[in-house]
């Protein structure tokens, strides 16, 4: 609500974090880059981290449309509940701890926010996750990955013909 000091402080911090995510060198992205996944590789953790950020962004779009349609006091509670679980995931699994902290603060503030203030909060959150998902997408060389993927598929589906019968029978 207008005059909510906690909300105003949060929006100021969110604006700074968005600009860092857009054009700076965010600590979250640095941490994710150094985070090892299974078998000593980091591809899977980066792919799923990118996808998680995209999912949260999609949720922001949903919540934004929802808040624009329903100016009701309980909307803030719905928003809050939808932010709690991804905050845990994105912080613990992908080391995006600054982002998790922003989500946790938003979840705490949301129940006391409504109307235009809620729409504004969600728009600013959407912008933050817009920049975040793009920064994580920048870590993924889709061209090289697609060449490797198509090459692997070619080898498994075409170059190596499917076996017919038992090897001993084929040899006869």
């Amino acid at each position, binding site marked *: 609500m207008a005059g909510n000091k906690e909300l105003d402080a949060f929006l100021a911090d969110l604006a700074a974090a*968005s600009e860092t995510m*857009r*054009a700076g060198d965010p600590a979250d992205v640095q941490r994710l880059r150094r985070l090892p996944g299974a078998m000593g590789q980091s591809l899977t953790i980066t792919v799923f981290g990118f996808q998680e950020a995209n999912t949260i962004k999609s949720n922001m*779009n949903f919540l934004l449309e929802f808040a624009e349609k329903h100016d009701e006091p309980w909307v803030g509670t719905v928003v809050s509940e939808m932010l709690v679980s991804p905050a845990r995931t994105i912080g613990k699994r992908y080391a995006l701890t600054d982002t998790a902290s922003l989500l946790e603060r938003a979840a705490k503030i949301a129940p006391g926010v409504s109307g235009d203030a809620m729409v504004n909060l969600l*728009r600013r959150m*959407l*912008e933050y996750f*817009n*920049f975040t998902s*793009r920064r994580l*997408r*920048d870590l993924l*060389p*889709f*061209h090289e990955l697609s060449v490797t993927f198509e090459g692997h598929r070619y080898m498994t589906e075409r170059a190596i013909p499917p076996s017919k019968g038992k090897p001993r029978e084929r040899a006869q």
Partner: protein
Amino acid sequence: MARKRMRVRLGDEVGIAELFEDKAPATVAAVWAGLPIDGTVNHANFSGEETTFPCYGLMWQRENEGHETQPGDLGYFVTGPAICIYYGDQNVISPGNVFGRVVENLAGIQRVARASWKQQRVPVLLERMED
């Protein structure tokens, strides 16, 4: 009346775009007010020959959504928010507000836009042309 014009710097190429104030007045006004807008592009993953870059929310309404774009068309994707450069053949899945078109040096813009599939973080800058 002459159309508003915008410089599109993409990598080492510079194109000039005309803005569609007749078809998308609210989007043109929002983009014009937001200029200069900069960022780095990512090539589209689904829709075809398109490269895009995220931006702050310039507006939140849908207008003149382009289901059949022409090469060189520029779009503002509300649910990004993002600016889209439709540089070639498109299979539009989520349309943007088409607000302008590159009318000079489209070939140069197409070359860099296509290369953005292989090259990460190609810089882009949209600027007003006041003359």
